[in-house]
């Protein structure tokens, strides 16, 4: 395997790209996809440490992260569909009814 810190730095870069996506984009679907990207970056860290320490726990945690990510994507997309039905837009700047 390549040295551990290579994987850690790659996963930091992917996570930062996901953060930038959430901040930059003004489209709910792309924001949700950036969140998936961040979750994957974290998964990469888990797997790298699991290989480095020789323990299976990291892989089991990745399994649970995938479950949570699937649930999050399903609920997020359902919310997006129902918001789009009311507003005909995917721009989060237009959704400010609850803003004080």
């Amino acid at each position: 395997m390549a040295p551990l810190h290579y994987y850690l730095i790659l996963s930091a870069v992917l996570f930062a790209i996901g953060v930038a996506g959430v901040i930059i984009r003004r489209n709910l679907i792309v924001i949700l996809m950036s969140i998936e990207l961040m979750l994957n970056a974290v998964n990469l860290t888990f797997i790298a440490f699991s290989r480095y320490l020789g323990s299976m726990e990291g892989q089991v945690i990745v399994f649970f992260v995938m479950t949570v990510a699937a649930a999050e994507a399903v609920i997020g997309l359902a919310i997006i569909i129902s918001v789009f039905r009311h507003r005909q837009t995917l721009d989060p700047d237009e959704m400010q009814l609850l803003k004080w």
Partner: protein
Amino acid sequence: MASAEIFFFILAGLSTVSSLLVIFQRNVVRSAMALVATLFLIAVLFLTLEAPMVGFLQILVYAGAIMVLFLFVIMLLNPTVLERRQMFWWGFGSLTALLLIMEIVFLISNSLRTGGPGASLKESFGSPESLAQSLFTDFVLPFEIASVLLLVAIVGAVVLAKREA
């Protein structure tokens, strides 16, 4: 340089480029396809880390099921308006990402300079058997909670996306 490192650098470069495409493509379908490519590359990285089971699950669940769901929603809603560019948020987001990368690289290079090959592994490391062994003994309660979570997600999605009668 060892061949494992060259392979890693190829994968790392490709996955960085494709994840940048995810956030800089203005067309939503194209950024979804770029995300599929990124997830595949991360699955290959999992394979290089002796985690074949998780790698295949990644391809099946993420690149398969979740991304198909995303594409279905994109095509169902068919958002024709391209979003406008906002220079302020563009700069702010890039700056935040750069700061985050610099911070983490600084932390890692201070605390962890490990070039070693890692722990020696048992023959069965990463196999479906050892994953299941761990999952159904030490992690059986989280496993059950995860199944309840999935049930809640199914019911919630149906209720939320249902057309009001």
